[in-house]
């Protein structure tokens, strides 16, 4: 299992591995927002938590189509399915590797991008906390979407259509935490909901992902 994680991390950092792609996308989207809505700092600070959450979500989506498709194309997925590792742990490790190479950098970059959008000072802590709790769910849900569409030509587009609705609860409660936090209000309720959604997806979805992967490999 560790070997698979290390291999996936190594592949992500090597040439063409796609590390930094999501991060660059996140940066560009955030930089473009003031151009489109105007530079009034009061407006920007109102919408900053929502924009940062949406940007992180879309950046997460960007690298999902490579998550299992590359392993499927070169035959590794067939070989992993016949290896002693259960497919459930294969998809969990894949999701973890995706989070480490995409989700975690987004969490770490978010406060710096918050400066660009004039995010209110109390918001930084809650933005990082909400993204830290929310992005693992996005990787796990995304892995499920990738397992559903593996083997399809141009499956990336279908993947986005399938996964985006599933991201809605995470987005609602995650952005709510960041928004309430930025205005200095109580964040406990949405934070608990967000944590609950993440815990449930991590606990349940790997089984669903492994099941659809088995069917798709036939």
């Amino acid at each position, binding site marked *: 299992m560790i070997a698979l994680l290390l291999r996936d991390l190594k592949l992500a950092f090597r040439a063409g591995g796609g590390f930094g792609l999501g991060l660059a996308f996140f940066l560009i989207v955030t930089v473009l927002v003031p151009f489109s809505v105007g530079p009034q700092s009061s407006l920007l600070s109102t919408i900053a938590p929502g924009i940062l959450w949406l940007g992180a979500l879309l950046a997460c989506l960007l690298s999902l189509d490579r998550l299992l498709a590359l392993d499927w194309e*070169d*035959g*590794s997925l067939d*070989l992993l*399915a016949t*290896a*002693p590792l259960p497919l459930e742990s294969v998809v969990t490790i894949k999701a973890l590797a995706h989070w480490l190479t995409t989700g975690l950098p987004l969490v770490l970059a978010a406060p710096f991008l918050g400066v660009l959008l004039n995010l209110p000072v109390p918001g930084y802590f809650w933005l990082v906390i909400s993204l830290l709790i929310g992005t693992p769910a996005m990787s796990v849900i995304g892995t499920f979407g990738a397992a559903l569409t593996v083997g399809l030509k141009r499956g990336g587009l279908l993947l986005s259509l399938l996964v985006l609705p599933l991201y809605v609860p995470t987005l609602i409660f995650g952005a709510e935490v960041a928004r309430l936090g930025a205005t200095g209000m109580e964040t406990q309720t949405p934070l608990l909901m967000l944590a609950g959604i993440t815990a449930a997806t991590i606990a349940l979805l790997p089984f669903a992902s492994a099941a659809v992967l088995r069917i798709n490999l036939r």
Partner: protein
Amino acid sequence: MTLTVTELAIARGGVPVLERLNFALQPGKALILRGPNGIGKTTLLRTLAGLQPPIAGRVEGAEDKIAYASHSDGIKPTLTVVENLAFWSSVFGANDIQPALDAYALNELADRNAGNLSAGQKRRLGLARMLVTGRPIWMLDEPTVSLDKNAVKMFADAVRAHLGQGGSALIATHIDLGLDGEVLDVGPNKAKPKPIDDFDGGFL
């Protein structure tokens, strides 16, 4: 451990391709699978490897014993030859990769990125993977594609050594490898696609 196949029927894409397959694969033996293109050799190997369920019949003695080599080798182009092999070795429980490198003369290529290898060299790397799995039953799907004469000999030697250690191999191939083993001819006479009426009957 003997692999026993009883009254096996397999399907590709929902269409039955082979029916009533019966054979046993003893330790130390190779079984050469022959038959025209499209007859279901790959489907049979995938079914035995557990990648797809059979539509009827039983496979015994296959659980966690099979190392499967498909048409594609599962090679990551941005990893080196050694990194590719070491990965599969640790997935299957950390076997030494040096014998595998020696068997397929990959030592000179050890630090090259696998993406820069030729088709035949990639195939050799894919076949070397079988040696690091430590699994007793090899399932090889057209293993000699794009191999030169010398590499075919390396492959035959590796299979012979594997058989000598009590392993067994089921090989779908169109060429003569000079191995000691039976030939299982799967022909059109064994492939009996069911009439469509039967399928409808099943649904109603």
